[in-house]
């Protein structure tokens, strides 16, 4: 060997610091670039107006509403199912073939690309069930997509609750369900919340699946049976079709700010949870 062990360690560690610095640089650059270009155009009128002439002028209010509808509904559907799955896996059964199958299903679902979810949502919700391109079709598709995230994080959160809490609850004569709802869930709540908030973030940033299921109508969705364009899709259409670059940047900054806020909130929840169970 040409290099002394000390030198080679120095070299390897420097290279890794460089890689990490570049990675963080990319993150800062992406966020900075979008915000610098977009923030000057992200005015109150832009946020509170409807788009005119295909988004060339006007604002993005209907897209904000549409995004909240689609992503919110998706999380509202997937949340309870995901948490119930996690409770079942951790509290109501022992590890065996059945749990292995359920976990396999969740793992596989997590690996399916969003465009496949889109194709499925299109043929199943939009056409077969006759929901059309609508908020509901989009939300149901996204719910399936984020379900594994919620199951996984809720399961981890529930497992992190100390065993002694459960023993005490049983010792006081509670039933299993009372123990789960009054002790375990209450304690695991911030951890479960992290998963749900992250799922919300993923629903907001998703484009491919939403494009094929929720459609791209420009107006306000008056009900969940109407098509609605989400922010991410609006940004894609504005920039790809070259409709208006300033509005594209402004839309992207709104999107980035939402994602940043959601991730910070999730991070804060996670820290609270770790502090609570540790």
């Amino acid at each position: 060997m040409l290099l002394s062990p000390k030198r080679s360690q120095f070299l390897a560690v420097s290279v890794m610091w460089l890689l990490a610095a570049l990675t963080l640089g990319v993150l800062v650059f992406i966020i900075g670039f979008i915000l610098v270009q977009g923030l000057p155009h992200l005015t109150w009128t832009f946020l509170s107006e409807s788009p005119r002439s295909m988004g060339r002028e006007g604002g993005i209010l209907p897209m904000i509403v549409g995004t909240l509808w689609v992503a919110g509904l998706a999380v509202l559907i997937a949340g309870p199912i995901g948490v119930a799955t996690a409770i079942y896996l951790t509290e109501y059964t022992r590890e065996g073939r059945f749990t292995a199958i359920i976990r396999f299903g969740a793992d596989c679902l997590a690996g399916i690309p969003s465009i496949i979810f889109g194709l499925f949502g299109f043929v199943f919700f939009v056409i077969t069930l006759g929901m059309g391109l609508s908020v509901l079709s989009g939300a149901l598709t996204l719910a399936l997509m984020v379900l594994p995230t919620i199951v996984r994080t809720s399961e981890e959160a529930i497992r992190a609750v100390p065993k002694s809490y459960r023993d005490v609850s049983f010792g006081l004569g509670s039933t299993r369900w009372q123990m789960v709802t009054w002790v375990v869930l209450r304690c695991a709540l911030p951890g479960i919340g992290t998963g749900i908030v992250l799922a919300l973030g993923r629903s907001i940033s998703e484009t491919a699946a939403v494009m094929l299921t929720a459609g791209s109508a420009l107006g306000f969705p008056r009900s969940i049976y109407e098509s609605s364009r989400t922010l991410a899709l609006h940004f894609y259409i504005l920039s790809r079709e070259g409709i208006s670059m300033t509005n594209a940047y402004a839309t992207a900054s709104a999107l980035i700010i939402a994602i940043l806020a959601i991730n910070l909130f999730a991070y804060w929840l996670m820290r609270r949870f770790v502090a609570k169970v540790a």
Partner: protein
Amino acid sequence: MTIHQPIEIHAPAPADHPPRRLINPEALISAILALMALSALSGLFIITAFIFKEGVPIIAKVGIRRFIFSSDWYPLEGAFGIFPMIVGSLAVTAGAMVIGVIFGLGCAILLTQFCPPRLVSIIKPSIELLAGIPSVVYGFIGVAILVPFIRDHLGGPGLSVLASSIVLGVMTLPTITSISVDALQSVPKSYIEGAIALGATQWQTTHMVTLKAARSGIVAAVILGMGRAVGETMAVIMVAGNTIDIPHSILDPVRTLTSNIALEMSYAAGDHRKALFATGVTLFVIIMSLNTIALAVSRRRTGKVYAK
């Protein structure tokens, strides 16, 4: 794994004790939860069923060999060959893995072995944030910055295998990092202490002991990252150029399986739409194979840890 049995405490029943209910509420709750737990699995099942139901007949009609190995994609004339798209997907994925593995693994090793905890608490959430950025934003940055740079300095149209690989590499980095971090952290402390006690430097310990012990976990991380790269759609559409041609250099534009679906789905009808579902079937099979390999590899690892 122990299961906590409820300790039944029977207090003496008061005189006006309500009559015993017919259904045990606990059993009912358990059944409901089990039913809900099955929803992910049934979701997977129904997705598979519908994608295959829509896609397989057209593959059978065209012939599986022609569908996969023919380069003629003229959907309006009924010629459905997706070979260029398969090559395209493989090319951008391979390129993405070069970047994703170098950066992702580098960050993972740094975070677990060399980084002071205070910096870990900054770097780790930042990398997780990278995973949260919408793919359309990645694609947009690719078009606005990367594509003109490649066009001006390296030649070609800019929209290329190279541009897609770089964008996908950054996008798969968080997956590779977070799973590798888990793998590296689950290496028993005693291995590392043993190596240090034998006089190895920290870096020698890392690459001779820790990385070897965590190998299967890291392989799983790379395969899952590959799955993410193959499946990514919007970012690739924006930077790959989307021409249906087998690329001859990394500066040539390509179309991937995913972009083929997303680009043509809006106006496709009849056999054309079915052929797009068949493209989805191909993608689905590739992804599922990758996931199964990753699951098998990581299961081998847990088996090994338990055996210790």
